[in-house]
């Protein structure tokens, strides 16, 4: 019967994962290894010089050799990304709450949030870098602009999707605006906010990288994008690939962390975090 609680997954497990789970991990891994092998073979067989295309082994060795410089840059890019994401989450949430309280505020401000979103960050980054003296603050603003909108727009929709009967119920019991917000609208908006956060996590990284490219800051306080630029100028292509590898790995890590946060926050009640028997 559809009303029964879902039956827990009873498939046999090998080393903590089901056969399906292992296939999900191993199949893409195998594809990746094959592709890397083919790449390495192609580079060696054709004697491609490393300033055109380095093989994966050389990229890995460069990553280990230059780890000191690259890890400092990674730290700086991560700082900007997470600071931007945090500001985007807090401001996005606060502004969405403000929108939910007053239709007039929403109608008058939302178009500007859209303008902020549709203006290409590459086009306004130079202006921001000129206007703001501190480069780090400028980079943070750029990353924030990109990361801000999904959180704002998702949370606004979430706050407005509270069940109408529940709203009536709150009214029946004379709930204050504050009670409706904290006990009904915010919990309803939670899955929407987390979905926005997941998108914004990746966007904040992209925003930070793009802004670093435009700023092109040198010296010790430069992020991964500057390392890529620098390596390009110096024809140190293996190092360029190593930096690129770190950017991708960071993006994947952010996505996984956001997915985990979302799962932990919603697993007890929301459909999106349910494990279901496959029919």
């Amino acid at each position, binding site marked *: *019967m559809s*009303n*029964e*609680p879902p039956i827990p997954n009873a498939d046999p497990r090998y080393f903590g994962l089901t056969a399906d789970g292992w296939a999900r991990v191993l199949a893409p891994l195998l594809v990746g290894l094959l592709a890397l092998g083919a790449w390495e073979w192609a580079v060696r067989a054709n004697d491609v010089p490393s300033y055109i295309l380095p093989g994966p082994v050389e990229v890995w060795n460069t990553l280990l050799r230059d780890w000191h410089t690259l890890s400092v840059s990674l730290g700086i890019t991560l700082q900007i990304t997470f600071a931007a994401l945090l500001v985007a989450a807090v401001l996005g949430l606060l502004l969405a709450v403000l929108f939910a309280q007053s239709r007039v505020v929403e109608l008058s401000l939302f178009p500007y949030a859209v303008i902020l979103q549709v203006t290409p960050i590459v086009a306004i980054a130079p202006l921001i870098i000129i206007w703001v003296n501190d480069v780090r603050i400028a980079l943070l603003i750029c990353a924030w602009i990109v990361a801000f909108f999904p959180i704002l727009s998702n949370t606004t929709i979430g706050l407005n999707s509270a*069940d109408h*009967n*529940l709203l*009536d*119920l*709150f*009214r*029946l*019991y*004379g*709930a204050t605006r504050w*009670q409706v917000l904290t*006990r*009904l609208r915010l*919990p309803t908006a*939670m899955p929407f906010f987390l979905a926005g956060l997941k998108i914004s996590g990746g966007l904040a990284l992209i925003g930070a990288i793009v802004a670093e490219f435009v700023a092109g800051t040198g010296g010790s306080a430069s992020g991964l994008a500057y390392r890529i630029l620098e390596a390009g100028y110096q024809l140190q292509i293996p190092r360029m690939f190593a930096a690129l590898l770190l950017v991708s790995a960071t993006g994947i890590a952010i996505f996984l962390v956001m997915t985990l946060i979302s799962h932990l926050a919603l697993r*007890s*009640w*929301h*459909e999106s975090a*349910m494990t279901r028997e496959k029919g």
Partner: protein
Amino acid sequence: MPDTTSLIRPLVTLRGVEKRYRNGTLAVRGVDLAIGQGEFVSLLGPSGCGKSTLLRIIAGLIDASAGTIEWPSAMHDARGRPERSIGFVFQEPTLMPWAGALANVMLPLRLAGVPKSEAADRAATALAAVGLAGFEKAYPRALSGGMKMRVSIARALVTKPRILLMDEPFAALDEITRFKLNNDLLELWERERFTTIFVTHSVFESVYLSQRIVVMAARPGRVVHDIPIEDPYPRGESFRTSAEYAAQCRVVSRALSEAMAA
């Protein structure tokens, strides 16, 4: 027991109640109705007859376009409505999916500022009264349709309301579950005697439960019959299979057919 309305002091009295929606639809017109204290009344009618609208007007969720709704003066809040003494059960269980059964039942008390521990005690008692002791922590998604409806009823009764308003609460449930909930609701009502207005489109359900059936017709929504059901309580399975019950159902069915033809 003859005409119940003249004997029992009315809890709520509707006079000339009319509701016209902004798009011009006349949902109900000229409704005069007195609901006695402790009475179990069903509003029966075809869809579109305004029975849900009437229930929401009584709850104060929507305002009437014309007419008055009177409550005993002891129950008034600042706006002349009965203060937090209404329990409402929707057709859907309408539970907060992020909260467990106990937290859902605690909601009306918490909104009224009752301290958490006291609210939890009272909510646990209410859950036990609907047969859900031991399910305090269960999330709505883990409960069956009937159990969710029980949580919803516990939430409506946790404030000890003077009046319980139910808007086709069991319409989405299967028949076996519905019969069980009918019996359990009657048992609760016989114990506490809270005034109940029960909206339904089922003749059989209304005859089984009520002391009185108000039959409504559509376009515009209006009251066309007021039929007392004088069979004594408790009404169990023997009543459901009795000739008396069948006869009452025939009477009410005929009234409903008339209402639909009118």
